[in-house]
């Protein structure tokens, strides 16, 4: 490795915001053709460092060398010129435009004052073929899958001539299959001499793709390790600064009476097409049922139907013997339903409102929080202070807007709110999305705790690890139906993957038990 040339060398980078050092004397060196992971918890300073490298921020002190030459990267344009390009986590694409239009946006090549779309399309097609990106340049962005949108983002960076690509949490929105494709693409990029910096907090991904990994903790670089020679456990310990357990510590479940029963449920999506197509499912007291499935197989519609946010076309949802389909959200909540929503920003929280107001978002109208329509600030404050303490929500003050909290603490606030109402049935949808190892550990243990208290928990997640670790039964959802129910101890990710892709349980079993397809992990 040492003979390879170094393309990026960041020396002693310090970035200070007031008193706070987001980056404190960080060193990072990236070699040509390598995939270099940048690992750290949320808030560790990864993005700050990459913003420095891509010219969005200027460092307080420190030097950057690109291809051995000292560089002053004072603007994103400068970074572009130096061949540094960022593939953003949140795609910066115009939905109404075609892939080609999106890619040339801002660097349109013109012929006699007219955009030469044909030449651009050809060039993009060539790029796409060369790196195996399989992007249709003339497709409109709104019509293509999330995975293809991401590949369009990659193309955009390549089209601008980048040699060093920064991937910011690229797998957050992808399915397992799309992740595999992405990894192949990354390898084909490095084969062509490109270098990749991968920002992530997912350890298994680092193990799978990265050559080396630099760990950042609280703004300082902890060290750079050779990934092959390091275990996931060691990486996790370096990142968090203490020993971390991956396995959720739980006793076997003791399921009791049925709490939730869904019968032949049909729900339409926003386009008025059936998204949930005659689904049947039961969740019992004292068990966690995990719903595994690729995004877009009706999971969101199912959750929204249960919680009263989306009309049910036909079928029944029975919560503790009471039919709740097509009831108002408040009525469903009052009959003993807790809901950790999929999207905590869009749905779960009113971000500009204070922590305490968010804590009583569903209960504000009840005593003691209000009486005759007048809010009782004191009761609200006492209750929120109690929950914040009990659920370890870290905030300077319960009067601060909830937007000022980190993602993990926002999620803890939601969990505190939902769990403390003591619902007999709890939905946790993508409860750990975007969170770091420490917070994930905490949230999983809280879910299991609910189960042990005899509550019924429905966990919906795209993270197979999470499903495998937390659930007592796994229901695989495909095209609006449950296509199989398996026990985590009797299955593996590969079998789940096949089920999620639509094959039957028998077929999946047969495929994974053949000698060549066994036990990948």
């Amino acid at each position, binding site marked *: 490795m040492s003979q390879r040339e170094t393309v990026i060398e960041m020396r002693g980078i310090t970035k200070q*915001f007031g008193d706070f050092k987001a980056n404190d004397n960080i060193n990072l060196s990236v070699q040509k053709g390598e995939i270099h992971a940048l690992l750290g918890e949320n808030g560790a300073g990864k993005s700050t460092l990459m913003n420095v490298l891509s010219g969005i921020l200027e460092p307080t002190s420190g030097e950057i060398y690109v291809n051995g030459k000292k560089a002053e990267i004072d603007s994103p344009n400068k970074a572009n010129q130096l061949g540094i390009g960022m593939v953003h986590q949140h795609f910066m694409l115009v939905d109404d435009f075609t892939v080609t239009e999106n890619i040339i946006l801002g660097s349109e090549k013109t012929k006699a004052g007219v955009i030469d779309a044909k030449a651009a399309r050809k060039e993009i097609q060539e790029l796409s073929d060369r790196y195996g990106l399989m992007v249709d340049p003339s497709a409109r962005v709104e019509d293509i899958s999330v995975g293809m949108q991401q590949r369009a983002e990659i193309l955009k960076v390549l089209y601008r001539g980048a040699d060093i690509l920064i991937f910011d949490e690229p797998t957050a929105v992808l399915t397992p299959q799309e992740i595999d494709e992405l990894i192949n693409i990354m390898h084909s990029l490095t084969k062509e001499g490109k270098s990749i910096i991968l920002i992530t907090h997912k350890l298994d991904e680092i193990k799978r793709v990265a050559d080396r990994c630099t760990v950042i903790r609280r703004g300082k670089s902890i060290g750079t390790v050779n990934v092959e020679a390091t275990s996931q456990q060691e990486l996790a310990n370096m990142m968090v600064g203490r020993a971390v357990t991956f396995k959720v510590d739980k006793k076997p479940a003791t399921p009791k009476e049925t709490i939730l029963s869904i019968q032949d449920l049909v729900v339409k999506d926003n386009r008025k097409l059936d998204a949930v197509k005659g689904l049947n499912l039961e969740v019992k007291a004292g068990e966690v049922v995990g719903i595994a499935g690729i995004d877009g197989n009706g999971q969101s519609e199912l959750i929204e139907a249960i919680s009263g946010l989306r009309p049910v076309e036909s079928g029944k949802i029975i919560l503790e013997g009471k039919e709740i389909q097509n009831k108002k959200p408040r009525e469903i909540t009052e009959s003993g339903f807790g809901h950790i929503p999929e999207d905590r920003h869009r749905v779960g929280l009113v*971000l500009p409102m204070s922590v305490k107001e968010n804590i009583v978002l569903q209960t504000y109208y009840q005593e003691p929080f209000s009486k005759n329509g007048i809010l009782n600030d004191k009761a609200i404050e006492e209750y929120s202070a109690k929950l914040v303490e009990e659920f370890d929500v870290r905030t300077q003050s319960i009067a601060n807007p909830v937007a000022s909290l980190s993602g993990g603490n926002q999620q803890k606030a939601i969990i505190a709110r939902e769990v403390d109402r003591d619902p007999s049935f709890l939905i946790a949808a993508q409860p750990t999305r975007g969170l770091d190892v420490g917070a994930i550990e905490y949230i999983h243990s809280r879910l299991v705790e609910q189960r042990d208290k005899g509550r019924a928990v429905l966990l919906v997640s795209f993270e197979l690890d999470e499903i495998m670790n937390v659930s007592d039964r796994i229901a695989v959802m495909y095209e609006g139906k449950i296509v199989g129910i398996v026990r985590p101890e009797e299955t593996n990710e590969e079998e789940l993957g096949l089920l999620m892709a639509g094959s039957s349980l028998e077929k999946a079993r047969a495929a994974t038990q053949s000698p060549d397809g066994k036990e990948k992990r």
Partner: protein
Amino acid sequence: MDNNKRKTLNNLTVPLLSVLLGFLIAGFLMLAFGQNPLDGYRALFNGSFGSPFYIGETLRQTAPLIMTALGFAVANIAGFFNIGIAGQALLGWICSVWFALSFPDLPGFLLLPLSMLAGVAAGALWAGIAGFLRAYFGTSEVIVTIMLNYVALDGGNYLIRNVITDSRDASERIPEAANLRMEWLTELTQNSTLHSGIFIALIMAVIMWVLLRKTTLGFEIRSVGMNPNAAKYAGMSAERTIIISMLLSGALAGMGGAMEGLGNFRNIFVQGAVPSLGFDGLAVALLGLSNPFGIVLASLLFGALKIGGTSMPLATGIPIEIVDIIIALIIFFVGANYVIRFFIDRRSRQTAGPAEGHAADQASGTTETLTGTGEKSSSEDEVNH
């Protein structure tokens, strides 16, 4: 808590700086036209606060502004852009006068409050139409209220000419029992047109503050305004909240109009356009950051500018238009600051240490903050619907 104080201070900087910059630039303009800005501003001040009479006039101008601004703010906090405040105020004016003229024999303790109420009801109903359409059919309240402004104007003029009067351009004066003016106020302010509306306006500002901050209804209005999805998820009825907030908005505007009818003009006459009171209220709410107390202060400033401005040409020869320029500049800077801060916020959020890494937080965070504090996003949303 410290954080909160800093935030309040930050919030105050924008309007204060805007006012200061507005005066400063208008001062340069006066200089450019060969006038002494100090003389100009002295005349402006004397003409608005220089004597009990001028103070009375300024306060009289302030009262209905507080009402229309409160009206705009309530809708804004719920996430709606009620640009029809002017039409609602006009209807409030017409209906309060109409009622007073129709029942001249009622005793004063009934006639005045009932006339007032007629104006309030008319304004509420007018805004309620837009609220209802919005809640149940998703119709843009911006377009509906703009159009309703025209209906109010032309329909109102028809009423004045054909129903309230016998094809005349102005109604009779309202009976004395419906008069908002009070002798002691008139005497105290040396025969100014000041009426008791200012007290009503101040009380309404306090009530609105309590309503928004301390009641479950206010909690719902703020939640729906800042994040309708979360409000729905939490079991609040978006439809109900939309309609209630629009009714409130129109009621406040109608009350502002009724003050003009029962206190200031004491009659109604054919209008050439919807009263500027409505649009000034919008500007006041913007400057006052939709906060009832901020609105009181901003209304006082606007009231003083409008009244003091009339003295400026007499005392110094500076044209009254300079006052409109000052107002325009203040609004411009409030607006511009808003844009600048939007970008500063976004940038610091993207790059600031502790919040770093929550890329998702930033993305939705900023837009939602916007919906909460400003009207821009909501109006844009509407257009898209």
